[in-house]
């Protein structure tokens, strides 16, 4: 089966058989805390990772509460269970790196430093939202923080990531682009096109497949024909690939740090498949979130593989933090999320005039080109 890492899954025997095939890369169990990306981490940095993960989780729990009250629109794709991936990635960005992701984007947004207020207000569709209430849950952006969204169409963001890498290389910047996609997105044709072009043009792009096991409501085995992993599809394009666990922040940082470095310095693309798990459905509206997988499976991940719990225990064991401090950080995250919800609820709706703003740069700035001809055709 696809889940080549040490995760305890699953019932389909034929895929299990496949999984133990000889092509599986050998995963020894190195001590990732000794990796060059981790060994010099300061205690406050490690604590900051915990804080960021807790902030994401509390933010989303708060959002879910209001979504369930019916006062938020649209879809809400929760990242709960996957927080380590976004936080680990953001922690490796060097100021010249760019990231882009799909619609499960709240975690990445907060991890790169977007404020809870602007994000929560966006969920409420308010004018104070990060996209002025025009994007919603799936469309958070912060170009000033090298975060390029937030994209609703599965795999639609992957060529954009390619473009970010292209621009980095074109401008001669020592950076890389990290483009996230899910395990379902690998089956979109455009992703394969991207792999080909990334290799052909030698672009500094890292495609991170956040493999949470389910392509919407369809399990990996039922949606992807695979030999031993999704990342290994890169093989056919002469793109390097590797796998890592997303549950352990040390491992994620070690693996991703390595490939980001390679992209920056050698202009080589890479596909990194990160195993992770979402506790909620594809979106909150996913009625079958507990039907296409067993409640026991979800429970197992929550109790055994929760990235926040694992990291918290790690830090407690390392004695860089006390339980009291953990509780304090969590309380602060909860309070911040609650306050962000208040902010969102109390923020004004966008003005009616704003419907016609932010469509054309030239119109918004009333440049010469924005003043000639009719741009909008409603009365």
């Amino acid at each position: 089966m696809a889940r080549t890492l040490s995760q305890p899954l699953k019932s389909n025997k034929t895929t299990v058989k496949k999984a133990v095939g000889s092509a599986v890369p050998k995963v020894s169990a190195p001590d990732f805390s000794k990796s060059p990306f981790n060994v010099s981490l300061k205690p406050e940095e490690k604590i900051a990772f915990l804080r960021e993960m807790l902030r994401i989780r509390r933010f989303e729990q708060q959002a879910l509460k209001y979504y369930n009250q019916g006062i938020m629109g649209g879809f809400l794709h929760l990242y709960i269970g996957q927080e380590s991936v976004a936080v680990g990635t953001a922690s490796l960005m060097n100021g010249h790196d760019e990231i882009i992701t799909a619609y499960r984007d709240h975690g990445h947004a907060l991890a790169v430093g977007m404020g809870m207020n602007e994000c929560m207000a966006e969920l409420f569709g308010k004018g104070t939202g990060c996209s002025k209430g025009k994007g919603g849950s799936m469309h958070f952006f912060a170009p000033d923080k090298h975060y390029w969204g937030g994209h609703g169409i599965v795999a639609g963001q992957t060529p954009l990531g390619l473009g970010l890498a292209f621009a980095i290389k074109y401008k001669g910047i020592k950076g890389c682009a990290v483009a996230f996609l899910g395990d379902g997105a690998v089956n979109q044709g455009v992703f394969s096109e991207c792999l080909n072009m990334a290799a052909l043009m030698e672009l500094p792009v890292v495609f991170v497949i956040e493999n949470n096991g389910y392509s919407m409501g369809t399990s990996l085995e039922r949606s992807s024909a695979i030999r031993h992993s999704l990342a290994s599809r890169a093989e056919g394009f002469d793109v390097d690939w590797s796998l890592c666990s997303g549950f352990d922040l040390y491992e994620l940082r070690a693996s991703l740090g390595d490939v980001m470095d390679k992209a920056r310095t050698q202009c080589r693309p890479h596909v990194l498949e990160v195993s992770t798990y979402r506790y909620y459905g594809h979106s909150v509206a996913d009625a079958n979130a507990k039907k296409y997988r067993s409640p026991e499976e979800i429970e197992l991940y929550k109790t055994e593989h929760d990235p926040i719990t694992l990291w918290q225990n790690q830090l407690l064991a390392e004695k860089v933090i006390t339980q009291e401090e953990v509780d304090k950080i969590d309380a602060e995250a909860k309070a911040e999320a609650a306050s962000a919800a208040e902010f969102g609820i109390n923020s004004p709706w966008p003005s009616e005039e704003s419907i016609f703003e932010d469509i054309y740069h030239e119109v918004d700035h009333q440049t010469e080109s924005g003043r000639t001809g009719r741009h909008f055709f409603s009365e």
Partner: protein
Amino acid sequence: MPLITYRQALNDAFAEELARDENVFLMGEEVAQYNGAYKVTEGLWEKFGSKRVIDTPISEAAFLGMGVGAAMMGLRPVVELMFWSFAYVGFDQIINNAGCIRYMSGGLINVPMVVRGPANGGTNVGATHSHTPENFLANTPGLKVVCPATPYDAKGLMISSIRDNDTVCFMENTLLYGDLGEVPDGAYTIPLGVAEVKREGIDVSLIAHGRAVLTCLAAAEILASEHGIEAEVVDLRSIRPLDEETILNSVAKTHRAVLVDENKPFCGVSSQIAALLAEHAFDDLDAPVLRVTALDAPAIYSMPLEKLQLPDAQAVVAKVLSSF
């Protein structure tokens, strides 16, 4: 002024802009080493090198999306589609990404990209290669659509499009690439959203874009010499933004409008103009707004029938006469 081809006018525009702004680059299938399928980019790779003029694989979705990503970062990609018909495999990138990102980001991100290539029928290449998607694209707020008819307009509009900070879908025409016209040396711009009266007249307004403008000019000559009817020819040049003022002024003068459009009739560009006239020129009209469009079937391969399928001067003349 030098007499050059439509193709050369575009080539000159690229050369001017590549030299002026190092953020400008050309990209597309066979635009570099092969010199372009229709030789529009001929010589540019030799002059500007592989960094600025880039061959891509046959992956429209990926390289259109790559253009969007690069444009978000401040580059100014000029992406060639060998045929605009091929845009259909990359529509997600054009509509959802180029067209919507500025809005969905609350104005934080621009996509200053030009997507260009020929969009036309009339070359016996069958339905899949003969599409004219200006109506689909102009239907997306966030995109701009330009369809030049002459070498002069092609160059001026291309330079404006490259300098524009929004995504411009620039539709050329393989049948026009060899047309000659007077084009000044050096860079000049023609603003988007400004139509041009290509021929003055008082009896009827022929409103068109792209190659149909030339069809109208030919029809106008026949109408004048054989029927004593002086037709005014309005070249839209840009579909979105649309210069409604010039259209309405012309119809207020002539009181008749015949819309000529190589688009299909259903929800085509001419449908939009007809709606405009119904709404804002009602009391000026002395006859119903009439249309001559591509016949409403997929582009046929057979040569004589494809000729029949597209508007020609005789069809325009007949339509004009029917309104008097």
